[in-house]
C-alpha cells in the first residue's frame, strides 16, 4: 500500500489502546517488589520452556546421527527405536520419574523417593499464590527435566543398534526412564545424599551422559557384538554408516540442543547475574564442542593420515559432554581445554573398545561414558566448591548403580523374552526382518 493510505491507518492503530478497546487485562494490584519477583518467576519459567524444547530437539539429533551411522538395512528400526524411546520416556517420567527424582517426601531419606506418584500440573491460570514464586512453574520444570530423561535413554539406542530387538529394548527404556535414571539423579539434583556430600554436576555429565553410557555398556556386554564385526587375530571389520550427511546434521542438531541442555540447567534467568551466567554457559558450551571437533580433526589426520568425519562428529559431542558438568565456571580458554581433551579421549577410546570386543556402533560409550568421567572429574579444576575426590565418588556411585542394575535388567530381559534378533534377521536387516518396512525401498531389490 502507498504512504498516503498507510500513515492514517498507522495513526489509528496507535490510538486503539488509548481508546480502551484493548483486551481486558488481568487487574491485579501488585507492589513493585512483587512485580519484580513475578518477573523473575516468568523469566525462570521461560528459560525452562525454551531450554526444554531445545533439549527436545536433541531427540531429532540423536535420531539423525544414529540413522546415518547404521547401515541402510537397519535405518527404519533405528528411527523407530528413537521415536519410541522418547515417547516412552515422556510417559514414564510423568507416571513415576519426576516425583521419584524430586521427592517431596522421601521413602528412604536421601536415597529413594516415592514410587508411582504421577506428576500433577498447576491449575489453569494459576496465580502468584499457587506457585513457588522463587522458582518456576511446575509444568516448565517437569517439561524441562523430562527431556533429560529422554536424552539418557537415547544414548543407549546408539550402542545397541543393528542387533537388538525392538520391544525388549523399549522395555529397558521403561525401566531406565521410570526408575534407574530418576533414582540416581535424585541423589544429586533431587537433593539426595550425593548433593549433601558436595558432588557437583551442573547439567549432567554423570547423571545423564555417563549414566546413559553405563547402561549402554551393560547392554553391549549382554547383547554381544554384531555378527562379523570381529574376526580372528583381533581383526576389526568396518561396517560403514549409510548416510554421513544425516550423521553430520544430527551432530549439529545435538550441538544446538545442548545450549538448552546446559543453559537451562542454570535454573534461573530473572536477574542480571543469572542471564549473564546463561550467556557464559552458551559460550563455553560452544567452545568445548568446537575444541573437541578440532582435536579429533587433527588427531585423526595425524594417526590415520586421513581425517575421519565420524570421529570429528564424535569429538564435538565428547567436547559437549565434557563441559556439561561445569559449563559456567570455566573461562573460554579452560572450556577449550576441557572440550579438546574430550575430543582426544574419543579418538583413542573408539579403537580401544574394539580391542575389548565391545561393539558400540556409534561410539556412544567413548562420547558419553568416558568423556563424562573426564567432564565430571575436571569440575574441581574450575569450581572451587568441588573436590576431585568427591567428583570421583559421585561418578563411581552413580556409575556402579546404573551399570549393575542395567546389567541385571538386560540379563532378565534376555532370559525371559530374548534381547537379540536371530542371526538370519541380523543378516537380512532389521528393517525387513522385524518391521517389514525399508528406509530406502527404491534403492533395493525389494
Amino acid at each position, binding site marked *: 500500500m502507498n504512504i498516503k493510505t498507510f500513515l492514517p491507518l498507522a495513526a489509528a492503530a496507535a490510538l486503539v489502546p488509548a481508546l480502551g478497546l484493548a483486551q481486558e487485562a488481568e487487574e491485579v494490584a501488585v507492589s513493585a517488589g512483587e512485580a519484580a519477583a513475578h518477573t523473575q518467576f516468568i523469566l525462570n519459567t521461560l528459560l525452562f520452556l525454551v531450554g526444554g524444547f531445545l533439549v527436545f530437539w536433541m531427540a531429532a539429533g540423536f535420531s539423525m546421527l544414529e540413522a546415518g551411522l547404521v547401515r541402510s538395512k537397519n535405518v527404519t528400526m533405528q528411527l523407530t527405536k528413537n521415536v519410541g524411546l522418547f515417547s516412552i520416556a515422556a510417559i514414564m517420567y510423568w507416571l513415576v520419574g519426576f516425583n521419584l527424582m524430586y521427592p517431596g517426601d522421601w521413602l528412604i531419606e536421601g536415597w529413594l523417593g516415592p514410587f508411582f506418584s504421577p506428576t500433577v500440573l498447576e491449575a489453569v491460570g494459576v496465580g502468584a499464590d499457587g506457585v513457588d514464586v522463587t522458582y518456576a512453574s511446575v509444568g516448565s520444570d517437569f517439561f524441562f527435566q523430562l527431556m533429560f530423561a529422554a536424552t539418557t535413554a537415547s544414548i543407549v539406542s546408539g550402542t545397541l543398534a543393528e542387533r537388538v530387538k525392538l520391544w525388549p529394548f523399549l522395555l529397558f527404556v521403561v525401566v531406565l526412564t521410570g526408575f534407574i535414571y530418576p533414582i540416581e539423579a535424585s541423589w544429586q539434583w533431587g537433593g539426595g545424599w550425593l548433593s549433601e556430600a558436595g558432588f557437583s554436576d551442573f547439567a549432567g555429565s554423570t547423571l545423564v551422559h555417563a549414566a546413559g553410557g553405563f547402561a549402554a555398556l551393560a547392554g553391549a556386554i549382554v547383547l554381544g557384538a554384531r555378527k562379523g564385526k570381529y574376526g580372528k587375530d583381533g581383526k*576389526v*571389520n*568396518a*561396517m*560403514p554408516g549409510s548416510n554421513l550427511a544425516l550423521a553430520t546434521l544430527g551432530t549439529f542438531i545435538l550441538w544446538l540442543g545442548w545450549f538448552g541442555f546446559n543453559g537451562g540447567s542454570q535454573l534461573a534467568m530473572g536477574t542480571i547475574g543469572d542471564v549473564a551466567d546463561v550467556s557464559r554457559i552458551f559460550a563455553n558450551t560452544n567452545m568445548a564442542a568446537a575444541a573437541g571437533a578440532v582435536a579429533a580433526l587433527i588427531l585423526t589426520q595425524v594417526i*590415520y593420515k*586421513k581425517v*575421519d568425519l*565420524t*570421529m570429528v562428529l564424535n569429538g564435538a559431542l565428547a567436547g559437549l559432554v565434557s563441559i556439561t558438568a561445569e559449563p559456567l565456571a570455566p573461562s573460554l580458554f579452560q572450556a577449550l581445554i576441557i572440550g579438546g581433551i574430550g575430543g582426544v579421549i574419543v579418538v583413542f577410546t*573408539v*579403537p580401544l573398545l*574394539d580391542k575389548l570386543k565391545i561393539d558400540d556402533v556409534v*561410539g556412544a560409550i567413548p562420547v558419553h561414558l568416558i568423556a563424562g568421567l573426564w567432564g565430571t572429574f575436571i569440575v574441581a579444576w574450575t569450581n572451587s566448591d568441588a573436590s576431585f575426590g568427591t567428583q570421583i565418588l559421585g561418578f563411581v556411585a552413580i556409575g556402579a548403580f546404573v551399570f549393575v542394575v542395567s546389567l541385571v535388567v538386560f540379563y532378565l530381559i534376555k532370559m525371559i523374552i530374548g534381547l537379540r534378533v536371530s542371526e538370519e534377521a541380523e543378516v537380512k536387516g532389521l528393517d525387513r526382518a522385524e518391521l517389514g518396512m525399508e528406509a530406502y525401498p527404491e534403492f533395493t531389490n525389494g
Partner: protein
Amino acid sequence: MKLIIAAIKPFKLEEVREALTTIGVRGMMVTEIKGFGTQSGHTEIYRGAEYAVNFVPKVKLEIVVADTLAEQVVETIAKTAQTGKIGDGKIFTLDVDSALRVRTGETDGDAL
C-alpha cells in the same frame, strides 16, 4: 545380430553414448556394476578399522546391433572410453539368436 557387452569407467558414459548414437546405434541398456580386473581395489579406514574395497564402480553397456554395425560399435566404444590408465574396461561380442520389438512384434533386423 551381435550383442556387445562393454564395461567402462562411469564418467565416460555420456561421451560413449553420444559417439554411438552418431554412428547409428538406436538403443542400449546401461547398468551400474562393480568389478575388478587389473585395477584392483584399495584400502579405506573407518573409525580406526582398516578394510579393503575390492571392487571398483563401473558401468556396463549392452547393445544389440546388426552384424554390419558390430565392429564399428566396438571400435567407437574402445576409442571413446579409453583414458590410457588401468581400469578402462573390456568389450565382448556375442551372437544373438533373435530379437523382437514388444510394441509392434517386429523381429530380428526390424526390431533393432
